[in-house]
C-alpha cells in the first residue's frame, strides 16, 4: 500500500488539523486549519472511491470549493480587523489543556481502540473533533471562536460519511453543504452585527411586529 492510498494518513492529518489549533492556534489562523481539515476530508473521500464516478467528483468539488475555499475565505473576512483575530482558539492554560488531553483519550476509547482498524480510528477522530469543538464552546466566550468550533464540529460530521457503506445521496449532501455555508454566512453576519451594535446607541422601543 503506498502512502497516497493509506487511509490512516489522511485521518491522522485531519486529527492534527483539529488538535493543533485548539492547543496552540490563534483565531486568525483558524481558516487555514479549516482548509487543511477539508483537504484531509477530500483525501479520505478519494481513498474510499478509487474510480472517478459522479459521487467522487461531487464530493471533491464540495470539499475544494466549499470546505477548503469559500467557507475559510468568509471566516477570514469576518476576522479581518477584529480584536478577536489575535486571541487563542482555546484559552491557553494547564487546566483547559488537561481537559482537552483527557477528552481526546476518551474519544479514542469511544472509538473502541483506535489502532484496531481504520473504522475505529475514524470514529476516534470524529469523537475527538466533536469533543474539542464542545470544549472550545465551553471555554471561549468569543463569538468568532464559537463559530470556529461549530465549523470544526460540522467537519467532523462530514467525516462521518466515510463510515457509511454507501455515500450520502445527493439531496443529503446538498443539505449538509448548505448547513455548512449557512452557518458561516449567518454566523459572520450576526457577529459583525454584534460588533456594530456594541458601538451604536441602543434602539428606541417601538412596535416589534
Amino acid at each position, binding site marked *: 500500500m503506498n502512502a497516497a492510498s493509506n487511509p490512516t494518513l489522511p485521518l491522522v492529518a485531519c486529527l492534527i488539523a483539529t488538535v493543533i489549533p485548539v492547543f496552540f492556534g490563534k483565531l486568525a489562523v483558524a481558516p487555514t486549519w479549516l482548509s487543511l481539515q477539508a483537504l484531509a476530508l477530500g483525501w479520505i473521500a478519494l481513498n474510499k472511491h478509487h474510480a472517478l464516478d459522479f459521487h467522487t467528483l461531487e464530493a471533491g468539488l464540495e470539499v475544494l470549493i466549499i470546505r477548503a475555499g469559500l467557507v475559510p475565505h468568509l471566516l477570514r473576512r469576518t476576522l479581518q480587523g477584529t480584536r478577536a483575530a489575535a486571541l487563542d482558539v482555546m484559552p491557553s492554560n494547564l487546566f483547559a489543556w488537561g481537559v482537552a488531553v483527557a477528552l481526546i483519550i476518551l474519544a479514542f476509547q469511544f472509538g473502541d481502540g483506535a489502532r484496531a482498524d481504520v473504522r475505529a480510528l475514524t470514529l476516534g477522530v470524529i469523537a475527538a473533533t466533536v469533543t474539542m469543538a464542545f470544549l472550545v464552546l465551553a471555554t471561549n466566550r468569543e463569538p468568532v471562536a464559537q463559530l470556529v468550533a461549530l465549523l470544526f464540529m460540522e467537519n467532523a460530521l462530514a467525516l462521518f460519511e466515510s463510515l457509511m457503506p454507501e455515500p450520502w445521496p445527493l439531496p443529503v449532501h446538498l443539505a449538509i453543504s*448548505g448547513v455548512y455555508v449557512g*452557518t458561516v454566512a449567518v454566523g459572520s453576519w450576526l457577529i459583525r452585527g454584534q460588533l456594530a*451594535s456594541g458601538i451604536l446607541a441602543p434602539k428606541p422601543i417601538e*412596535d416589534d411586529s
Partner: protein
Amino acid sequence: MTASASVTNPNPAASSVATATRLADELIHGTHWVSSALVGAALLMWLVAMGVFLTHPLTELPLYFAQRYLVLDATSLLFIVVINTVFLGIGVYLYSRQRHTPTLARDIRSRAALMLLFMAVINIGLMANHLVLLWALIEVSTLCAAPLVARGNAANPQAVAWRYMLYSAMTLAITFLGFMALTQSAHLRGVEVSFMVDRMGESLTRAPDAWQRLGLSFMLFGLGGKLGLAPLYGWLPETYEAAPTTTSALLASVQFNISVVAVFRILQIFHGFEAGFVSQELLVMGYLSLVVAAVQIMASSNYKRLIAYACVSSSGVIALGLSVGKAAAYGVVLYIVSNAFVKSLLFLTAGRMRAVYGTNAVGPLSGVIRTLPMSGFLFSIGIFALLGFPPFASFLAEMLILSGIVQAGKLLAFTLMCVMLTVIFVATGRTVFPMLWGAPKVTVTAPPQSWVTLLPKLGFVGVLVMLGTYTPDPFNDLLRAVAVSIGG
C-alpha cells in the same frame, strides 16, 4: 389606583403614533406590495395544503416521491396543514402591522423573503423520509430564522440570535452523534444501516445493545433541546422574548412542530424497540421541564418571557404524554396541534400590547382589558387555552394525557404532573390576572386596531374552540392516524 388618578405614560412609542405611521408611510413607499405578496404566498401554500388534505384519503397514504426522499403520510400531512394555517395567520397579521411599524416597513423585503424560505424548508422537512435530510433541514430552518430573531428590539438582538443558532447547532450535533452510534451498532452486528425512515427499523435489534441505546438516547436528548425540554431549554426564553412577535410565533408554532415531527419519526422507527428506555428518558426530561417552567413562571415579571416558559411547560407535557405511549398518544397529538394555535394567539396579542405600552414588563400593564379591550380579551382566551380550560382543545388533550397516564398505571407520574400543572396555573394567574383585570396604572394612547389585525387571532380562537368541541371527522381521522403511527 383608578383610571382617573392615573399618570400619563411617558413612552414615546405610545404617544407618537401619528409620527410612527407617517414614518412608516414614507418607508413603505415602494414596498407595500411585499406584505401583500407574502399573504398571497401564504394563502397559496395553505390552499395547496388543504387541497392535498381534502383530495388524499388516508387509505392512499403514504405516498413516496422524489426517489423516496420525501413522503406524504399522516404525520407530514397533519403538520403541513397546521403550520400553513398558522403561517397564513401570521402573514395576515404582518400585512396589517406594516403600515404602523417603521422598523417592519424598512425590513419587510428581507423578512418576507426569509419567512418564505423558512416555510419552504420546513414544508420539505416535514415530508423528509431520510433522517439525516430531516436533520439538515431543521438546521437550515434555524439558519433562516436566526436573521429574523436578530430584527428584534432587545438590547443586542444579534447576540440573542447568535446564541439561538449556537444552541441549535449544539443540540443538533448531539442528535447527529446519535446517528453515528446507531451506525456503529448496526456495523458491529454486521447489518447495513439505512437512514430512510421507512427502512431504518430493519437495522435495529431487540437484543440489548449499548450502541443502539446510546444512539437513541443522544437523538432524543438533542431533539429535546430543539423542543425546549430541560436541561437544554436555555435558548428558548431568551429567543422568544427578544425576537419580533411574528418571529416568536413562527418559532413556537412552526419550527417547534418540525422538531416534534423528528421525534415522531424516531418513535415510528423504534416502534416496538426500546420502549421502556424511550419512556424513561422522556419522563425525566418532561418532569425536569415542568419543574423548571413552574419555578421560572413564579419568578417571571415579563409577559413574553412568561409565554416562553409556558412553552417549556407544554414541551414537558408532550414529553410526559409520549412517555406513556399508546394510552396518551391521541391526547398528545391533539395537544401539539392545539398548542400551535395557542402560542401564535398569545405571541401576536403580546405584540399588540408591546406596541401600545412599549414594554414587555408586567408591572406597567395593569388593567389591559380596560385600555385594550379586544387584546385583553384575546390574551385572556389565550391564557385560558394555555392553562387547559374548557372549551378549548388543550383541555380535552390534557384530560386525555392525564387519563392515559393513569391507564398506564403510573400514578406517581400522574400525581407529580397534577402538582406541577397546579403550580404553573397559580403562578401564571398571579402574574397575568392583575395585568389583565387590575386597575390601570398608566394612561396610554392606543392606536386603532384594524379588523385585519384581529382576523388571524379570531381565526386561531375559532380553531381552538372547534378542536375542543367538535372536530370534523376527516381531521379527527388524521389525528388518530398520527397517534397510531407513534404507538397509539
